[in-house]
């Protein structure tokens, strides 16, 4: 069985991170596995964790009254998800559900926050990775918002 820091080194999110840091934050992580259909977290629950997907597919959902659970986005191997643990009030905004058997590294948010606060260099490196991921996700969502495939009938 590979140790957490080795798993992280293979994950695109952590690509190029100094080995010392990998080891350091690996201490906050643990291996997790979710059966298909299982919720990983629910809207409104306390956000304690952050996940790096190693394998599988996760759907971010929201429940729309009258329409039911609606998938906003799916995430796959190589993606990370969960950033509600960074800022107060540390509550999940969406549901996350495993669509397929999903293996991930789950990080303890309090542990990560403490390490980042304690080592500004690590915190900066970590937050830069987060910002890049969030920006990319935001671009994609903006494009989704455009509803480019929608029919607009004018004449």
């Amino acid at each position, binding site marked *: 069985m590979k140790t957490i820091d080795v798993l992280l080194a293979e994950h695109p999110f952590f690509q190029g991170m100094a080995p010392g840091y990998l080891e350091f934050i690996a201490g906050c992580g643990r291996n997790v596995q979710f059966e298909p259909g299982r919720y990983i977290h629910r809207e409104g629950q306390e956000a304690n964790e952050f996940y790096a997907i190693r394998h599988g597919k996760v759907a971010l959902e929201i429940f729309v009254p009258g329409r039911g659970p609606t998938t906003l986005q799916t995430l796959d191997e190589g993606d990370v998800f969960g950033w509600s643990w960074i800022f107060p009030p540390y509550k999940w905004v969406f549901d996350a559900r495993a669509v397929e058997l999903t293996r991930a590294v789950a990080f303890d948010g309090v542990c990560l926050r403490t390490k980042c606060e304690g080592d500004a260099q690590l915190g900066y490196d970590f937050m830069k990775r987060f910002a890049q991921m969030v920006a990319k996700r935001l671009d994609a969502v903006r494009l*989704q918002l455009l509803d480019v*495939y929608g029919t*607009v009938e004018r004449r």
Partner: protein
Amino acid sequence: MAEAPTGVQTPASAARHAAQRPPAGLLPASFRVTSRRRETRDTFTLELVPVDGGPEIRFEPGQFNMLYVLGVGEVPISISGDPGRPSTLVHTVRSVGAVTRALCALRKGDVVGVRGPFGSAWPVDAAAGHDVLVVAGGIGIAPVRPILHRVLAQRARYGRVVLLYGARTPADLLYTRDLEHWRSRLDAEVQVTVDSADRTWRGNVGTVATLIGRAPIDAEQATAFVCGPEVMMRFVAIALQQRGMAGRQIFLSLERNMTCAVGLCGHCQLGPYFVCKDGPVFDLPRVRPFLTVREM
């Protein structure tokens, strides 16, 4: 004195009686609808054959025809059939205006006018020896379908073959039978994503551009064929270049107001190009300067 410089190469009397039959392309030929299949709520696939069993329309992937409905009008529609089977014309039409509505309402046995084929082709043969990445969005799957027919018919000539296809919802996916068929092949990769879905959808949700990062291709030598709404193509082009592809490896199919289809009416211009005859397929470097200029 060899000839008059005013272009009067023939005596005026001869010019008066010169045949006025327009060359191929200007006058439609009569085609009969042999099949009409509902793809989605607003999109239908028509199969057409020449009424008089006349000459089949040979076409290259990426080209389009002008379809005419008597008394309603004419529209450009890309050819979606198998270039290896030119005896039947296949057109997938989305009902968005008066003419496309009339086309979608046609029944088996109805007759339409067809001019074509027109325009430039996807350089499918030039991609031989390399990976082929097809990226389609919405109705943009229709103009790229002939690429897949051609490439899969000559599978050994190509490297990896990948289709990334984005649609609005699972119910908006076209050619679902083809998708299942292609996906079942061991030598082609099909990834589908939608903008939004309910619980019954077990596939990807997100824009098609998000699939590019993981597409199993060798970016350095692959050829990408991209078709969809212009905004989507711009984002896809960015993602492909982030993957390491050069502009000249990326081909787009553009849509403009094509009325005459032969470069004479002036409507479909984009900068120096007539999209109807210089396009609709362009490599990215040719059109890149104009794609980000507003209202070009």
